[in-house]
């Protein structure tokens, strides 16, 4: 979790396009929540948000976003005993990640606007562009790393 937070803060968050950057923490929170469960995902999101917030300086906001991401992704939980196929799992991962990213970015755009950009600029930037960029990165992460962690 700490490694992910460091990578996010020092590397990924610098990939800025129109003030929006990918969020691998959200991807990972969604993955944990989807694979393990909503309760664990919520706790994991809260903890990850706290650590990320310590690095950025917005502890409360990061924790809130992490909690919301973990909780919302938990609705797409795939239990182990369900014997779901990898396709279903992939689908659920994408859904969980998308929902978590949209909600997380909406919260971030609403509650944290350091440049005082108007809402019609800030929301599309964060929710649209940020989610797309994160999903691209999430797809890569899933195919190369996360997929191997899931049992068929």
């Amino acid at each position: 979790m700490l490694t992910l937070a460091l990578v996010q803060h020092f590397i990924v968050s610098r990939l800025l396009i129109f003030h929006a950057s990918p969020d691998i923490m959200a991807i990972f929170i969604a993955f944990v929540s989807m694979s393990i469960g909503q309760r664990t995902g919520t706790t994991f999101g809260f903890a990850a948000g706290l650590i990320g917030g310590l690095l950025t300086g917005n502890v409360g906001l990061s924790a809130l976003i992490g909690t919301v991401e973990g909780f919302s992704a938990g609705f797409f939980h795939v239990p182990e005993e369900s014997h779901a196929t990898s396709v279903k799992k992939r689908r659920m991962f994408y859904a969980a990640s998308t929902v978590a990213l949209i909600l997380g970015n909406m919260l971030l755009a609403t509650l944290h606007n350091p440049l005082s950009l108007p809402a019609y600029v800030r929301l599309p930037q964060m929710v649209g562009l940020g989610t797309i960029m994160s999903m691209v990165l999430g797809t890569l992460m899933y195919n190369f790393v996360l997929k191997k962690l899931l049992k068929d």
Partner: protein
Amino acid sequence: MLSLFRFIAKHTAYLYFLLYCGISILLMQLQRKETLDAIRERGLAINASVATQLSNFTGILNLRQDNEQLLLQNARLFSQVMRQQAELRDAKETQAAVANAPAWARQFKIARVVDRRFSATDNMLVIDSGASQGITKDMTVLTPDGLVGRVMEVSQNYAKVLPVINNDFMVSVVSDSSRTLGLLSWQNGDERIAHMEHVPVSSNLKVGEQVTTSDFSTFAIRGIPVGRVVRISKDKLFCNIDIRLAVDFASLSYVLISPAKPSREKIEIMGADPGRKGQ
């Protein structure tokens, strides 16, 4: 109740979610500077309020001690005020004595009457100038109003003055209009009235004439006012003359000491003893 527990156990994720959201919002609020400032201000207000209450309580306990300290301080301030008032009064009187003195009297030394002995026969004054201030025996003591007496004894910082209103005091005087000479002395009685002796019945002295010290005095220079003639009654050979003294000894607080003296050569050639009674 059991169903409630089942519901809670089933929806723990929601509880976690609410709990974490609450903590996160609390952290967000704490991070805001205004919130911290408000908490700090509130804390300061509570702290000040508690401190005030404690201070009031200890103030009541220490009331007796505070009162005693205040009384002491009051006494100190009162003594300071008294001293400053006395100094101010002295300064004013000194200024008044100097201002009222004639031009020839400006070179005189100023002294304060620090003690006086009253009796029917032996009045005596003590002034706060002595040998250190250049005072010597037989100097003339006066005020701008007139003659006070002569210096009899001198210590380092004080001098004893034999006033006009002493049985042992005599001075040679002369009237200003008729130039009648006489010897002024004081007997027991009214301290404002002295007597002029050795004035023959043939003299032209009139009531109201001013008398001053004459050239015949062995300690006083001539011309110092002594008093004014208020009553003349004729005897067989001499007149009985009452002189109202120019100086009010009852309110005497500052005096001048004249450094000028009659010529010693004149006194020697007359064979007079400067220390003898009278003159």
